[in-house]
């Protein structure tokens, strides 16, 4: 009896795993389409969007790097600047504030949390 139950639950496990993998494949499809279409000429994208890029072409990447409208170095620099300073200052200051809030009195804690929640409720 125990043996049977074990086997059936193992069978169920496999089915659940199969469902998971299927979901993951569906989930990854848009990303797959994006990545493979980087290496295709435009004509081929509309003709057969799902097929593998044979032969792969680097024209799209080249045109991005050479386009005068797209200064990719500057763009990356801007994003990295914002990320580093934003996250750095945020971590420092918010951990300091959290340290105080958890050590303060209960009713005052609620007040602080309310004030900091305001920002979440208001849309940017």
């Amino acid at each position, binding site marked *: 009896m125990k043996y049977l139950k074990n086997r059936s639950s193992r069978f169920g496990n496999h089915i659940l795993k199969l*469902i*998971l993998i299927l979901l993951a494949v569906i*989930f*990854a499809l848009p990303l797959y389409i994006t990545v493979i279409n980087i290496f295709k000429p435009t004509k081929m994208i509309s003709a057969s969007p799902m097929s593998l890029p044979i032969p792969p072409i680097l024209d799209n990447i080249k045109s991005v790097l050479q386009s005068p409208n797209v200064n990719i170095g500057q763009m990356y620099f801007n994003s990295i600047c914002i990320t580093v300073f934003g996250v750095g200052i945020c971590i420092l200051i918010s951990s300091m504030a959290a*340290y105080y809030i958890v050590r303060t009195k209960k009713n005052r804690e609620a007040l*602080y949390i309310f*004030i900091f929640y305001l920002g979440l409720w208001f*849309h940017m």
Partner: protein
Amino acid sequence: MRKKSKLFVFPAFLIYTLLMIVPIAGAFYLSLTDWNGISAGFNLIGFKNYAAMFKDTRLHNSIGVTITITFVVSITVNVLGLFIASLLNNAGKITNTLRSIFFLPYVMSTVAISFIWFSILSYTGVLNSILESLGFGNIITDYIGNSKNAILSICVIEIWRTLGFHMVLYLASIQTVPEDLYEACTVDGGSRWQKFRYVTLPMIVPGITISVIMSIMSEMKQYDIVKVITNGGPGYSTETITYNIVTQAFGNNMLGYSSAIAVFLFIIIAAVSMIQLKAGSKLEV
């Protein structure tokens, strides 16, 4: 000890007051005026802006769209997220790989995602050409051109984007459930479903509350996907509340009126999340 630790909260409080509380208070004040965003002076007109909101059919439509998106997305994301998380929790070796696959869309920027999906869903896009090559040419439709399909498309994109995040939230709270509770359930002869229903679910109520609140808040503030995919159109039919606020403020130069809508949205979001926090703490074990 006390004095020193008060200094710790000071920088956060200062930055927060300057960048958050002051603008929010400013929005409250502006909502009582008729400022157009450019002129030097403006008049206080009391609650006329709020009264005008009742007659604004464009706003009502955008409220309807926002509610639809919020309902569809937050229910799907939470149910599916919990489902996938509980499957992933005992999937063994493949857990980590699958978790990264599900989380990948959330890492990418929303605007980039919107462009990817635009190229998939547009009339000459990837999805339609796949359907055609498979011989389903008769069911090809415009997924963005008409408002009903467009709202559904926005929901699908948003679900695809945020599902991974909520799944990770659920996975994290499921993994904190102590193993001995499951053992006790096994000893009592509990099935897989009973383990989930009577052990996992009650133990992760705080996680559920946070996940639901975050999904509802972020859906009510939906803007970027709508901006890229439909730009509010056709007509005004796929505008969300936030999109409406931005176009009223900077397109139609009615900053006072748009501030009133912003305050209205703020009050609704605050009320919804308060109710949920209360309900969540009641359900907790």
